[in-house]
């Protein structure tokens, strides 16, 4: 059961972020002033990929809650941090971002830090 919860958390987080990134790049530069927030809120209800990303985020949130309820945080945090790897690969293959050796190395350092943090 714990691996199923890890899989749901990781896949749902990755899907949510990919959908948000794709749709927000299409929507153009956004801001966080009063008008910017209103515009973002409107985008969330108007764009189907953003609606889907919020649904995925909810799945990820509840799966992670169930995971930390049944497993120690020292397992839940590094296991769910696997989404870093999945998302970076997907960002390169699906979103066509340029993930060179420097960005990949930096991401691995951060991942190592998160895994250590949960010990």
């Amino acid at each position, binding site marked *: 059961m714990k691996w199923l919860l890890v899989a749901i958390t990781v896949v749902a987080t990755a899907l949510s972020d990919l959908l948000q990134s794709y749709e927000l790049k299409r929507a153009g530069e956004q801001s966080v002033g009063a008008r910017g927030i209103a515009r973002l809120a409107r985008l969330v209800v108007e764009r189907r990929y953003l609606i889907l990303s919020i649904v995925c985020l909810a799945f990820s949130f509840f799966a992670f809650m169930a995971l930390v309820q049944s497993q120690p945080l020292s397992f839940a945090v590094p296991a769910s941090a696997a989404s870093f790897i999945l998302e970076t690969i997907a960002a390169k293959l699906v979103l066509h971002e340029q993930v060179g050796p420097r960005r990949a*190395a930096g991401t691995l350092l951060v991942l190592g*830090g998160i895994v250590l943090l949960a010990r």
Partner: protein
Amino acid sequence: MDQPRTARTYLLVLLFIGLRGFGNLLLAFGTKHLPAVLGVHPAAYLQAMLDPAVAAGIAMLIFALFTRMALLSVADLSFVLPVTAVGYVLAEVLGKVFLHEEVTAIRWLAAFLIFAGVAVVGSTPQNTTKEARTE
């Protein structure tokens, strides 16, 4: 490199990290002071939201979500993910300062690794997608 745009991106990163860090802190503080333990009943969660600290925490986390969306509109996902991981370090610091949690040597090493990784990723272009290159 477009300096105003880069500065704006890092401002959004800082805002997001601060909102998420303090939002989670308020949630932790608020829920720890609730009289009853949260179970599976939705009513308990609704009642928890009436607590001022919990309500403020949720409001900050919602604003953090919008800030991250604004960030994703100007920077790569593969850039945003590691750079915003500094939030893990902030959570450690806030936990130590406000909730008096213990921070071990291993955790300081973890913080160093995260900062090093962020510095390396931060030295790469923040937006490399086709949309950005054709602007």
